[in-house]
Structure formats: structure tokens, C-alpha cells
């Protein structure tokens, strides 16, 4: 793989992926697979579920690269958006019985991603900022955001689960995100 390709920004690499360049795709995979797999693992709760979702998301990205629109956000946000949608689909297809959550494989199954580069170190810091922002939310707002985003539950399901009106659940989601947004500050966290 040429060094030149590696020096290109994501958006430029995507131009090549769009034309069917497998090496360019490999760069996108290398740059974003750890974040993608981490999100998939958090949502699916099992290694095999996370692998299926990650594989499906990246193959979808490869086959539909033309849909990436740089005006609508970074490649990373786009990749993670695909992973999130695929994981939600998978969770909602599973029966209630099968809907397991992160943690049921035990912590020993996890291994921390190596923080090898400055970029990764910066991301680690940003991850801490996001976790802090979440942890400072009132518990009921944090709960509905986590159930929705990571659990794949709809607002109606969450309302039933928590025995609260749907309007209340939607209000908590909106308020919680609004506070998070204020804490994160515009543009400070590049996802």
C-alpha cells in the first residue's frame, strides 16, 4: 500500500473507495474499525454479535460508498451511524429473550484498544469528556439516553419499561441531549 494513500484525509480516501479501490477501503477500515467495533460491542453485548454488525456495516460502506456526503459530517460519524443503525436492526430483530446487553460475556472478554498515536490519545481524552458529560446528567435522563442509543429500544418500549408516559420519556431524551450538547461545546468533540 502506498504511503501516499495513507497520508490522505478520510474524505479523499472515500473518493477512491467509491471507485472500488480495495486498498483505500482498507485504510478506512484501519482508521475506524476500533471505534466501530467498540460501539457494536457495547450495543450487542457479545463478541459474535459485534463482529456480525461490524462486518455488515463495513461491507455496506464498501458497497454504498457513493452515499457518503462530506457536507453532512465526517467519515467517522458516517461509519458510526451505519454501525448504530445495523446494531439497532439486529437488536430489534432478536426476540426479547435474546436481547442481551453489554457485560454478559464478562469483563475478561474485553481488551483495551492500544492507544498508539496522538490521534488515539486525543480521542481517548474526548471519550472521557463524553463520559463525563453523560455522568453529570440527572439519572433519569442518562437512563433513557442509554436505553435508546445503546439498547436500541424505542421511546414507546422505554415508556412501558419505566412505566412512564411517552411524552415524559421524549422530554427526558431531549433535555438530556441538550445538556450534553452544552457541556460538550460546539465543535470540541470531533467524532
Amino acid at each position: 500500500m502506498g504511503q501516499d494513500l495513507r497520508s490522505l484525509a478520510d474524505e479523499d480516501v472515500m473518493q477512491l473507495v467509491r471507485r472500488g479501490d480495495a486498498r483505500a477501503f482498507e485504510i478506512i477500515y484501519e482508521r475506524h474499525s476500533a471505534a466501530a467495533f467498540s460501539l457494536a460491542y457495547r450495543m450487542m453485548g457479545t463478541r459474535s454479535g459485534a463482529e456480525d454488525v461490524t462486518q455488515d456495516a463495513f461491507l455496506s460502506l464498501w458497497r454504498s460508498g457513493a452515499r457518503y456526503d462530506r457536507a453532512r459530517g465526517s467519515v467517522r460519524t458516517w461509519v458510526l451511524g451505519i454501525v448504530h443503525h445495523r446494531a439497532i436492526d439486529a437488536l430489534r430483530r432478536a426476540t426479547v429473550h435474546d436481547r442481551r446487553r453489554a457485560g454478559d460475556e464478562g469483563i475478561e472478554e474485553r481488551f483495551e484498544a492500544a492507544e498508539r498515536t496522538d490521534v488515539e490519545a486525543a480521542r481517548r481524552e474526548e471519550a472521557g469528556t463524553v463520559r463525563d458529560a453523560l455522568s453529570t446528567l440527572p439519572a433519569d435522563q442518562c437512563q433513557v439516553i442509554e436505553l435508546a442509543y445503546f439498547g436500541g429500544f424505542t421511546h414507546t418500549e422505554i415508556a412501558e419499561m419505566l412505566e412512564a408516559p411517552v411524552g415524559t420519556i421524549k422530554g427526558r431524551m431531549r433535555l438530556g441531549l441538550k445538556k450534553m450538547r452544552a457541556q460538550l461545546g460546539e465543535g470540541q468533540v470531533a467524532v
Partner: protein
Amino acid sequence: MTMTDHDRWADSAGAYVLGAMTPRERDEFEHHLETCPACREDVDELRPAAEALPMASPPVLPPPALKDRIMAEVEREAALLAQAGPAADRPAAERPRRRFHFPALTGWRLAPVAAALLIAGVLGGVLLTGGGSRTVSAGPNAQIHIDGDNAKLVAQNMSPPPEGRVYEVWIVPKGETAPKPTNVLFVPRSDGSAEAAIPGSPDDIAKVLVSDEPPGGSETPTGDVVMQAELS
């Protein structure tokens, strides 16, 4: 007192950016967004917070074998694309290979996500597939297109499923009578068109059915069968 469209969707922007709506609600809300600047503003404000959430996931490295599997498929498709030449329409270059085949029914419901929800536009057509192609009627508004080892349901003017339901594709294997669930769930587009990949090899399938089911699908059909096709 009548409820305006905006009242109905008040406070919904958070649920929308978190992905906490059913596909139908999402479509309806997106339709509402086209005419409601207040909700659009809400969505724009909240979206960056939702997009930052993945970073709260504990970092876990994917296994190297995953990359090998993905790259093997990508390289295979890239080679086919190169063979097809520059004139080939990129999205139509290759239909994804089924990751599970019908005889291997193990974990049907737990099967990988690959076959799920392959709705229109993802795959514009079929190129470089061998074998004959044929079309089977699945009712007045739907057909099953079979091309080699792949089958696809194509519908037009399809009514949306009842409120809070989705359509699920079922398969009756040859030599059996009971429909088996697939992980293919879909909702037609607003113009009534829909496309869904049928998992498994058409050679092993006697019948394809579509019924309305709760979101997430069912293990046995609970709703009305709205389409059916005899493949053999």
C-alpha cells in the same frame, strides 16, 4: 381542540437523533421535518450530542480475523468490478453473497445481519451472476425475481403495515409446510415500493410469504399474510 402536526411531534427530536423511533415513526417525523423549522432546529442542535455518544463505549479492539474476512470479500468484489470494466455501474457491480445458505438453518434468527433489510437502492441490479433468471408473481403488486442463487422481492403500490407493525418475510422450505421466520423485516417507502432480499437459495425454497408483525419480527406469523409466492 385539534392537535397540530407540530404538537404531535413536540419533544420528538431527541428520540429521533437517538434512533429511538420505529421505521414508520422515523419516516413520518422526517416528513414533518420538511415543513417544520422549529423541529429541524431542535434536531440540528441535539444531533452532535447523539453523534458523540459512541465515544462513551469502552474501547475494544476487533479481532484480526474480522479484518481478514471483510477484506477477502472486498477484494473479491473489487476484482469483479475491475473485470466488469470502467463502464460498470458501481452499485450494481455485485450483489452481496449470501452469508448463510438455506440448508444451514442453524441460528436462522441469529444469522448475521448481512441479509437484513436490503431495501431498494442498495443494489441497483445484478451483474456477473450465472444461471437463468425468472420472475414469479407474489400477488397483484409484487414479484419475486430469481437470478441464479439469489431471490429478491419487489413490490409496488404496497400499503404500509398497520400502525406499530412491520412486514416480515417468511420462507417455507421444500418438503416442509410450516413457514420459517427470516430476519428480513421491512416497511415500504412512502410511494408504496419496496425491495427485500430473500435469504437462502431459491432452489431450496417452496414458498415465500410476507405478513405484518410487531417490530423485531415474530417466530410464527401473527398478522395477515399480504403476499405469497410459490417458487417451485
